[in-house]
């Protein structure tokens, strides 16, 4: 798939052009920014990330693992009478349960994020512009078929102070 890319220098221009391009019915391939631009997900129409549910799932798993293992260890495998206290002294298990909940949730979401974003150590980054991690904002639009009107898109980009525009042939990204 061919891509149209435009470079911007300011986040406000980028936010505006993103909205306009989307309103004109073109589909945005991706946008590359040096930092998390506030409101860009909304302008792009991205749905809220589902990673938060996954985080809850991992944390819940941690909770279950912690309670079950402490119960099994303290009441079934090796019960020890400590001052006549019940073997299953649940309130005393809470601190470790809480810590394991947080540990599972935190470690889980970190790796889930890396998996979802397909990031891994040593992966070669695919950059449209070498400055996109420094000071440039790059908008890329899919050129699907003949309905792509380069004049209109070019006009929108110029209106919003695009620094440069180009067409990327083939799926170079």
């Amino acid at each position, binding site marked *: 798939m061919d891509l149209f890319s435009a470079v911007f220098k300011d986040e406000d221009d980028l936010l505006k052009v993103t909205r306009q391009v989307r309103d004109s019915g073109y589909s945005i391939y991706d946008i590359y920014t040096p*930092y998390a631009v506030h409101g860009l997900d909304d302008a792009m129409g991205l749905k809220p990330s589902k990673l938060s549910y996954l985080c809850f799932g991992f944390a819940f798993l941690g909770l279950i693992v912690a309670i079950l293992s402490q119960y099994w260890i303290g009441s079934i495998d090796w019960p020890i009478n400590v001052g006549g206290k019940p073997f299953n002294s649940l309130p005393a298990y809470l601190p470790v349960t809480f*810590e394991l909940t947080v540990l599972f949730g935190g470690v889980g979401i970190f790796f889930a994020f890396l998996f979802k*974003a397909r990031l891994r150590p*040593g992966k070669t980054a695919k950059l449209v512009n070498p400055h996109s991690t420094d000071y440039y904002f790059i908008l890329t639009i899919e050129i699907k078929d003949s309905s792509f009107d380069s004049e209109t898109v070019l006009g929108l980009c110029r209106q919003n102070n695009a620094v440069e525009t180009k067409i990327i042939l083939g799926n170079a990204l």
Partner: protein
Amino acid sequence: MSIYYSILRKPIIAGDKKLKDITDDVIRPLEQKPTLLWWVAFLVSLTVLLIGVIAVTYQIKVGIGTWGLNKTIGWAFDITNFVFWIGIGHAGTLISAILFLFRQRWRTSINRSAEAMTIIAVMCAGIFPLIHMGRPWLFFWVIPYPNLRGSLWVNFRSPLLWDFFAISTYFTISLIFWYLGLIPDMATLRDRAKSKIKKFVYGLMSFGWNGSARIWHHYETTYLMLAALATPLVLSVHSIVSMDFATAVIPGWHSTIFPPYFVAGAIFSGFSMVLTLMIIARKVLHYEEYITIDHIEKMCKIVLVTGGIVALSYGIEIFMAIFFGNQYERFMFINRALGPYAWAFWIMISCNVIFPQLLWIKKIRRNVALVFILSIVVNIGMWFERFVIIVTSLHRDFLPSSWAMYKPTIIEIATLAGSFGLFFTFFLLFARFVPFIAIGEVKGVLKYGKLKKNLTSESSLKANADVTV
């Protein structure tokens, strides 16, 4: 939620910076050769660390009989240092997680270095219980795993075990949180790097980050989730540390206010350490436009608030001791304030309660030199707080015939010094090889508090409405 161009707020970053300027300014110390000052500081820290290593090796070889402990005072210097360092760490997580949830955007200038401080401080703290075990090579016995000794399990009802879980979780989550924030900056470094080695190393560490908005979208959710997890975590860690004491029946320890009292004290001391480090760093690394006087003032306010909570806790403890009618508790407090360790008690009171009150004065909060001195004073006071809590509660116990005094040996002092050596060695290495300020996050707040250019105030307000989400 937030308005970028609010005319009511002051800019966070001073000077008329462009995006590229931020990258240049923050990375400059990394791209230059280390200065003479850095080398001197590094070699001094490394020397002190080596002294610590020798002391630790000696006490592991000979045994912890090399310490000044006796039958009455079973905990003293080592546990004081442990609690002190764990407390230092708390400010980093407060800045990175709690201030994030409260949308305190000024945190972006200091969160990276404060989080690094947290990780290093937790490492320093972890050494002390490890040595205290006496046979540290068997430390893995605190991990519950099926073993050939029974299986003999750990005691899940013991606060000392809770502590192991709390601190290892805290270290892991802090490290992950810190590294997550580092990934985009590593990509920035990678794309600027000229040498092959740098390109390779930063390429490896940036995980192939390319700044895609779709990834940023998930990234922000992950960041938020980690902040939401780290917030109760940081409160739990020092609460659990306090339970090491509170669940004992020793007068002066057996108290229900210990968890909030310890957490406030931890943030109090941690922020003082952040102030100490930031005041040096902004000067030496020329980050005055990023870590501004306003930042210092805001941190001073947090020190003042948490110091107030600490002072209130002291007050409540004394009140309870006098009016609660428990003679042991009352004796212990009179002994603390007037007994042989009264000097330590009054150092604690003056450093933690009296001197921090100076921060009510705005002129003092904005005076960098004075704030620097006060931050060190608070750290000394907070070290003594732990010493007072631990030693004065133990040294005159229920049986007067076993009353004793405690004096640290040179080995213990060398170990404490060594932990500072470790802390500064790692912190200097961090300042040398990792961007000291979160570049990506500071860029995001660059426009905060600034009016949009070329617009009258009325149309700028309208423009505000456009970008308000």
